[in-house]
Each structure stands twice: as structure tokens, then as C-alpha cells.
């Protein structure tokens, strides 16, 4: 019997891989007259077709999803004195809107807390207490909490509306130079110092709630809100976040070991989380992040992040030591206060000075190998696309010239252009693909392909120039156009492109390379 079932499964799987119209014929043949077997597989196929997402959502999971569904949007509504303009963010705790406080005529960030978070009276009380504490904080590095409003049974927190880019958004551009990371670290740590002095712990520091303001400062968002995860801490050690709303809260990537254990947290938890952020800024990826929240939590508990050098980041050892001290599993071994961290980071400042953003040489020292600043890469991509578009456009005048010239040489000229443009285009598309999907191979790709890109550029330019010269007498304007493009292409290929490549892929395109 089990053997039969193995066969049934195999046939069922094989039949599913075929289009529905061919399945009957396939089974008739594969079952070879075993009518019972054939009927069994067909009945399974029918069940499969009707099963929909039967069992696909693990038991209990479906209900959890439903519970976390957001309430109706407040966009366009007038809630108490607040005129809600638009949604600017959403997370496990609720939805954040940009709103105007009509009494004062100022913009605020209005956070509407998810109903299931505030349904419990004890939590509400705790929330009131914490918001009161957070509202006492007044520091340029902290988004000020203005008010806690309870309107129509909704709980809303109005706070300073900060314009700028989150560090999460900046991280999309890859790792940052050490000097910049040190500056960010100092600013955030100073803000933490002020908050901790007032007895307020953030508990949920991550790149998503650190914003670089338009004037270049840093601000921490969401003080006095993040703590709600820890509600009911009275019931002892438990990783409340994981169970209560793991699906909503995302991963525990920035949690401290004591938070994961569910122990009481203090200022040193913020130090750990800041350490994770600094590490991520330096090397471009979170040292603990794994595929599942559990695996991430396990890494936070048990694994030390790899040395920065393993990610080809050459941060000064002193900076790495500071970050590691933040990341100590045992909080007794971390910086006990944010002020100590500020002091150590300030001591490093002169050492990393000069590795600032402005100097490409310095940038090369800290950049993840092979990847340049996002702006330069965008230029490089635009360059590739522009050249390919130009060559495609040049097919038209070349076709005309072929007609005017005629005969064997006209054909040869035209085909020569096509051949050069195709080789060039294919190589460029290949490089675009590599830069996007296989950046670690970019160095090899550039070394191997760039000489041929340049050669085909020159070949195409030569053909265009030749075409221009041959028709110069009869078609002056076309000739001028062809010649201009030809000269332009040569200059671009020999002068402009090497510079673009150098800027976009500083570590790979020659020049001084760290350890390579």
C-alpha cells in the first residue's frame, strides 16, 4: 500500500506539472491500464483544484492577521483639533499621519495607536504615564512629544513633524564612511544621554526612527511610544513582542539580548540597539538579521557579529572596538551610560576625520568593496542607457548613407556599424545586470569587458566618421551630424567613461585598493 501511495504522489506531481488539457492523456498512458490508480490520481487532482488555500495559513495565523488589520484611515478627517492630511508611515503600533493642529496652525505627526494596543485600560494608563515622561524631553536630537489625545475612544500622540530622510532610507545607498558614522553616533548618543537623564528609555531604536533633518542634524522619533511592547512586563520573563504581534512588528533585529529574554530593560538596551545601528551603517547590513525572527533572536543571543574586515569594511580598530563594546551580550560589559559612548566617539573623531564624504580617496577606505555612492552609480547607469540609445538612433542616418553610397561598400559600412553597436550594447547590458544583481563580480566584469566596450565605441565612431566623410560632398548636414557624434563618442569613450566608472565603482576600477 505505501508503495502505491508513493506512485500516486509521483503521478500526481507529474500530472500537475503538465497543462490541464494534457493530464488525462498523460495519466491514461502512465497508469498503463491500472484503472484504480488512475482514478485515485484524478480524484486527488480534483481535490487539489478545489482546495484553494486549505491549510496554507497555519492554525491561528489567519486570526492574527485579521487582528492586526488597520482601522479605517483618518486621511482628510478632522479629529478633534487636528486636520489629518495624509498617511506618512505605518507600523505595528499604528498609523502615523501628517496633520495640522488647527489651534496653533502648526504641522504635527499624529500617531493613531492600533485599537488592540490601547484596548486594555492598564496599557492606556501606562501609555499616559510614559507619554507624560516623554513630553518632558526637550532636546534638539529628539522629536518633541506635544500631546497625548483621547478622542472618540481613540488614542493619538501628537509630536513634532520632522522632515528629512530616515537612516533606513540612507542605508539603501549602502554603507557609510566611518567619519559620517561617528558623527551620527555622537548625535544619537547625546540625545540618548539627555533622555536617559530624564529616566526615559527608547527601547526600539532602529534606522527607521532616526531621521537626518534638512539642516544635517539627527533626530530620534517615537520616544515614549515604543515601550508599549513591554506592557504587562509584570508577568515575568517573556518576549512579548514576538508573541503578541510578531507578524506586525517585523523582526527583532535591533533588540538587545535582555529584551529578547523579556527581562527588565534599562538605558543599556538603547546602547546595544545603537550599536547594531552603527555596525549596520558601517558595513551596510544588519549583523544579526536572519530569515526568521527566531533565527534573528537566536543570533542576537548567541552570536558575535563578524569582524568588519570580513565585510571588506576598513573602519579604524578603535571605532570597531567602540561598536563591539555597545554590542556586548552582557550589559555589564557595555557602556553603562550614553555619555561614555559620546566621550569615546568624540575621541575617535580626529582619527577618522578626512575620511569624510568629500574626499574620494577616503571614501575608498570605508566603502563596501565594489559599490560607490548611489549618486555616482545612477550617473553611470544613465551613461550606459544614453550611449545605447544614441547608437540605436544612429542606425537611421547610417541606413540613409548606405542608400546614397550603395553597392558593396555601403552594405559593409552599415553592417560594420550594426556589429559594433550590438557588441557594445550587449556588453553594457551585461555590466548593468552585473552591477545590479551580482555586484561582487563587478570588478571582474569591468576588468574583462571595459576594454572591449571602449574598442567597440571607437569602432562605431570610426564607422560613423567614415560614413560622414563619404557623403560630405552631397549631404553636408548629415555628414556634420555623423562626424560630431563620432568625435563625441570617442571623447566620451576615452575620457568621460573611465571617470564615471571610477566614481561609481571606486574600489574596482583601478586606483588604490585596500588589500586587493
Amino acid at each position, binding site marked *: *500500500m505505501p508503495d502505491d501511495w508513493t506512485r500516486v504522489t509521483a503521478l500526481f506531481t507529474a500530472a500537475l506539472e503538465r497543462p490541464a488539457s494534457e493530464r488525462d492523456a498523460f495519466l491514461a498512458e502512465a497508469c498503463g491500464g491500472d484503472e484504480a490508480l488512475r482514478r485515485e490520481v484524478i480524484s486527488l487532482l480534483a481535490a487539489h483544484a478545489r482546495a484553494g488555500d486549505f491549510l496554507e495559513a497555519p492554525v*491561528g495565523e489567519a*486570526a492574527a492577521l485579521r487582528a492586526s488589520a488597520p482601522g479605517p484611515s483618518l486621511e482628510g478627517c478632522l479629529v478633534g483639533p487636528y486636520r489629518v492630511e495624509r498617511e506618512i508611515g505605518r507600523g505595528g503600533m499604528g498609523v502615523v499621519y501628517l496633520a495640522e493642529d488647527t489651534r496653533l496652525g502648526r504641522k504635527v505627526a499624529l500617531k493613531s495607536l492600533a485599537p488592540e494596543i490601547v484596548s486594555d485600560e492598564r496599557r492606556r494608563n501606562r501609555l499616559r504615564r510614559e507619554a507624560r515622561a516623554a513630553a518632558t524631553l526637550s532636546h534638539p536630537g529628539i522629536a518633541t512629544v506635544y500631546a497625548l489625545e483621547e478622542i472618540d475612544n481613540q488614542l493619538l500622540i501628537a509630536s513634532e513633524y520632522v522632515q528629512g530622510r530616515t537612516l533606513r532610507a540612507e542605508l539603501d545607498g549602502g554603507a557609510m564612511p566611518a567619519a559620517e558614522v561617528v558623527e551620527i553616533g555622537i548625535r544619537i548618543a547625546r540625545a540618548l544621554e539627555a533622555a536617559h537623564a530624564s529616566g526615559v528609555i527608547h527601547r526600539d531604536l532602529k534606522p527607521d526612527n532616526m531621521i537626518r533633518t534638512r539642516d544635517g542634524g539627527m533626530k530620534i522619533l517615537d520616544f515614549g511610544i515604543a515601550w508599549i511592547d513591554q506592557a504587562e512586563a509584570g508577568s515575568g520573563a517573556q518576549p512579548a513582542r514576538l508573541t503578541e504581534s510578531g507578524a506586525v512588528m517585523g523582526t527583532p533585529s535591533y533588540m538587545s539580548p535582555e529584551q529578547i529574554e523579556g527581562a527588565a530593560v534599562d538605558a543599556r538596551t538603547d546602547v546595544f540597539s545603537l550599536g547594531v545601528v552603527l555596525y549596520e551603517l558601517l558595513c551596510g547590513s544588519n549583523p544579526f538579521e536572519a530569515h526568521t525572527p527566531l533565527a534573528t533572536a537566536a543570533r542576537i543571543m548567541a552570536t558575535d557579529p563578524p569582524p568588519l574586515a570580513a565585510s571588506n569594511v576598513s573602519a579604524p580598530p578603535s571605532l570597531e572596538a567602540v561598536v563591539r563594546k555597545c554590542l556586548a551580550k552582557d550589559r555589564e560589559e557595555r557602556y553603562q551610560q550614553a555619555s561614555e559612548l559620546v566621550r569615546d566617539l568624540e575621541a575617535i573623531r580626529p582619527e577618522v576625520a578626512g575620511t569624510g564624504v568629500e574626499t574620494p580617496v577616503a571614501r575608498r577606505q570605508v566603502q563596501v568593496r565594489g559599490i560607490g555612492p548611489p549618486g555616482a552609480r545612477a550617473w553611470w547607469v544613465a551613461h550606459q542607457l544614453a550611449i545605447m540609445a544614441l547608437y540605436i538612433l544612429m542606425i537611421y542616418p547610417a541606413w540613409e548613407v548606405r542608400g546614397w553610397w550603395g553597392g558593396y561598400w555601403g552594405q559593409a559600412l552599415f553592417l560594420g556599424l550594426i556589429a559594433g553597436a550590438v557588441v557594445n550594447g550587449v556588453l553594457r547590458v551585461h555590466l548593468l545586470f552585473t552591477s545590479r544583481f551580482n555586484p561582487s563580480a563587478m570588478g571582474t566584469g569591468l576588468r574583462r569587458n571595459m576594454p572591449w566596450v571602449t574598442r567597440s565605441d571607437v569602432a562605431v565612431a570610426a564607422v560613423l566618421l567614415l560614413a560622414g566623410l563619404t557623403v560630405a560632398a552631397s549631404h553636408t548636414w548629415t555628414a556634420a551630424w555623423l562626424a560630431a557624434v563620432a568625435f563625441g563618442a570617442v571623447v566620451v569613450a576615452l575620457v568621460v567613461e573611465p571617470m564615471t566608472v571610477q566614481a561609481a565603482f571606486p574600489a574596482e576600477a583601478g586606483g588604490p585598493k585596500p588589500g586587493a
Partner: protein
Amino acid sequence: MTSAAPEAVTKLLERARAGDRSAMSELMPLVYGELHRVAARSLRRERGRQTLQTTALVHEAYLRLFKSRPVSFQDRAHFLAIAARSMRQILIERARARGASKRGSGRGPITLDESLLTEQPRPIDFLDLDNALNRLAALDDRQARIVECRFFGGLTVEETAEALDTSPATVKRDWTAARAFLYRELTERR
């Protein structure tokens, strides 16, 4: 806190991995007990309103059992499979208890907990599912265990593959076949 000492659990896992069957049977109640505690507390906390999230429960039980001690990759996978099986037992027991208190003898379709299943196209009769799963186990034990891991344990395809020592492709294939089998059993052969 009556939690089993992590050392004991780790030892048992190691023995179980080495093929020691008695270790497995000693381990089961430990994991089961821990899961039970976590699940009960979680339900109490939410007053049955929401979020009996299997994945979260299984993972929390794991964290509680192992606290800060590192556990090998294989042991973790093994643990997840055992936890998934425990989860099945817990849920079936709850279904039985509910059925008994609601309908006396337990006749008629019994669903685990309406609030947990509202998103399913129709309420699943857990006792029927359990029986069907036993029939499937007789045909193909691995397929039944895959269902345990995926549906009762909330594990991903990859985690399931790890736990059962097979490839994700096999898990996907067997999962599809098992789902079709169970669906047919539950809808046609009453």
C-alpha cells in the same frame, strides 16, 4: 518557573539526533509542557480574542527552553519538528475538551476555536483532520509530518525541510499532495 533545564533539553536533543528513541520520548513531554504553558498564558492574555500565533508560540517555547545558550542548527531544526507535533496534540486536546463541554458526548463537527479559524473557507473539523492525518501517516509518514510542521507548527518550507532532513523541493511536492489528500478526506469521505 518549572521550565526544564536547557542543559537537559540540549542533551536529549543530541541523543535524539544520534538516533536514540528513548531520548525522543523523554523530550516530547518537556517540549509539550513548555508549549502548553506558553499557549495557555498567551490565550489568557488575549482573552481568546486574537493572536494564538502558532509560529510565535513555537518560537517562544524555543527561546524559553534555550535562553541564551547556543544550540546547533540541526538541534534547532529537530526541536521545531517536535514542537510542531506537540502543537498538534495541544490543539487536538483543546478541540476535544471544547467539544466535550459544549456538546456533552462530542458528537457532531467540532472546531478548535472559532475565532482562530474565521479566515479559513470553512471551519475545519480538527478531530476529522487528526484522523485523516493518521491515515496519511500510514501511507506516507513524511507527508504527515510535513503537514504537522507547516500547519500545526507554522514552519516555513525551508524550516520544514531542515527539520525533516530533506530538501525544500520535496517538502513543496509532498505538501501539495498531502493537502489534496486531506482536503478530499475531509470533504468527501465523511
